[in-house]
């Protein structure tokens, strides 16, 4: 049936209404896209293939477009260097004289520091490898402050890596593709970086608002900051290493504490991406979680080892462990009693299926324990949700999810 023959063939819809419906549908689609957006996430896949491909295309285009500006800048620098060579030489000599004194102080401090580290047996952070990149595009509006750098996955850049200029912290990587990576600047509204005041060690969160001077939020204590204080990264949370220069504290026009960014001293045309990995990322969590239980002390009473293989159906269950409640109470609770598996532990053992461990299967040892836990157990039970698991031995009951059925009785 042709359109003319259909009952709707002669239907005439006003174009304004049709356009209105199209606008409404498009608004719904835009809202759906906004809701699904996770640009500031630490998950690499959250950045999306569309953005990745677009960045891959934009990086060489931006590089080519910004080339004339770079060449002009380099030419001006050459001319300035030629005409101001004498004054610059004078300034550099004065700087060198001052720096020579600081070098002696630095050498003495380095020596002293090394001795203290040796005495304390302190394990310092490993050196952080870096990748240099050129900024090829720059967004500086109130809703987005990002830059595109021409170093990507092929150079080992990962989502979350901190980015610095020669003067200070610039931001962190939020998207990586081949040949390009997107840097979320400290000034973006989505940027929240844990920092500290160098003088007082007071912690704060540096929050961007689209302007050149991000805010210092969640400052605690009495007068934790004053005008001119140096602000550095605190390293809290493990995403950005401690001690990177951020800027100087100033009182804003709105009365809030803000930071004049150190990276704004000069144009950010080249950046360094720190391929930083926190201790929690470097350490083998699985290996830590699967440590052997230490052998029992000779002569001490302990729980008999549970059979690793579950008995066949219909077979007689194994004999219950010969432990009296009084004996069990004298044992350290962490080694004998099972405890709920926290979120951090589950994350540390990605291979395990957290939901497959039924509550009944993690009960057996608890069934043989006294109802009232010893003090140490009470402390471990109060650990916050999501806290990292201690690297201590694993409870025997959790290692034996298929324990004999006689141990599945509820605790009395």
């Amino acid at each position, binding site marked *: 049936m042709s359109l003319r023959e259909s009952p709707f063939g002669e239907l005439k819809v006003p174009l304004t209404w049709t356009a209105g419906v199209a*606008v409404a549908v498009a608004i719904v689609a835009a809202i759906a896209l906004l809701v699904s957006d996770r640009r500031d996430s630490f998950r690499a896949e959250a950045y999306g293939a569309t953005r990745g491909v677009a960045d891959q295309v934009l990086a060489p285009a931006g590089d080519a477009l910004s080339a004339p500006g770079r060449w002009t800048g380099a030419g001006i620098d050459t001319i300035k260097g030629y005409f101001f060579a004498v004054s610059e030489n004078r300034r550099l000599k004065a700087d060198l004289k001052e720096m020579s004194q600081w070098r002696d102080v630095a050498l003495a401090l380095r020596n002293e520091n090394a001795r203290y580290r040796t005495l304390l047996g302190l394990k310092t952070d490993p050196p952080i490898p870096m990748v240099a990149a050129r900024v090829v595009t720059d967004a500086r509006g109130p809703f987005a402050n990002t*830059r595109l750098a021409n170093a990507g996955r092929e150079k080992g850049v990962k989502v979350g890596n901190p980015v610095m200029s020669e003067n200070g912290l610039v931001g962190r990587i939020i998207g990586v593709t081949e040949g390009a990576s997107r840097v979320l600047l400290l000034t973006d*509204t989505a940027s929240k970086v844990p920092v500290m005041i160098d003088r007082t060690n007071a912690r704060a969160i540096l929050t961007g608002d689209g302007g050149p001077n991000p805010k210092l939020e969640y400052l605690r204590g009495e007068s934790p900051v004053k005008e001119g204080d140096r602000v550095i990264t605190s390293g809290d949370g493990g995403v950005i290493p401690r001690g990177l220069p951020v800027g100087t504290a100033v009182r804003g026009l709105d009365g809030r504490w803000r930071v004049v960014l150190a990276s704004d001293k000069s144009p950010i045309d080249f950046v360094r991406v720190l391929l930083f990995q926190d201790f929690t990322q470097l350490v083998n969590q699985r290996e830590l979680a699967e440590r052997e239980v230490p052998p029992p002390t000779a002569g001490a009473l302990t729980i008999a080892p549970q059979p690793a293989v579950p008995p066949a159906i219909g077979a007689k269950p194994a004999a219950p462990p010969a432990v009296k409640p009084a004996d069990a109470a004298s044992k350290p609770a962490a080694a004998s009693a099972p405890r709920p598996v926290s979120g951090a532990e589950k994350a540390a053992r990605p291979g395990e299926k957290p939901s497959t461990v039924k509550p009944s299967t993690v009960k057996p040892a608890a069934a043989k324990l006294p109802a009232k836990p010893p003090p140490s157990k009470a402390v471990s039970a109060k650990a916050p949700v999501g806290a990292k698991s201690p690297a201590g031995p694993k409870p025997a009951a959790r290692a034996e999810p298929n324990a004999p059925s006689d141990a599945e009785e509820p605790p009395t």
Partner: protein
Amino acid sequence: MSAVRSLEPWRWIGVPMLQVLGVTILFGIPLRIWGLQLPEPVFPMAAVFAWGVIRPSVIAPAAIVLMGLLLDVFWGGPFGLWALCLLVAYGVVLASRSMISGQGRAALWGFYAVVTALAFGVGVIVAGVKDKNLPGLIPLAWQYLATIVLYPFANRLIEMFEDADVRFR
């Protein structure tokens, strides 16, 4: 304009869209002159306003979504933010078209400023909800001022095509 031009979509939607996106990319290069950065106006706002005034269209909303998404990808903002802001601006112009068409340049410029403020207001709300953090007033004001001075480009587009379709005069 003396000659009436035909109103083919690629002429009044396609070409302006490519022009505003090209200028946006050009203004996105990291260039500082005497320590000052280039302004970052929302160039597509001029085209969106002109499209709403010229005539209603089904293609225009699709072009606006595409343009908004490209802005978000290029600027690295939340995906869908500028698509939503521009669509709201277009919807308002479309709804009040009978009132604003035929007005003088100054009145249209004033209405353009109001519509732009509305679009920025939507952006502020979205940023507040998504990032739980409002953008600062000063950067907002700078981008707003840089955007409303673009009205002459919108006016030129309106003058070129507003008489092209007699049904929507």
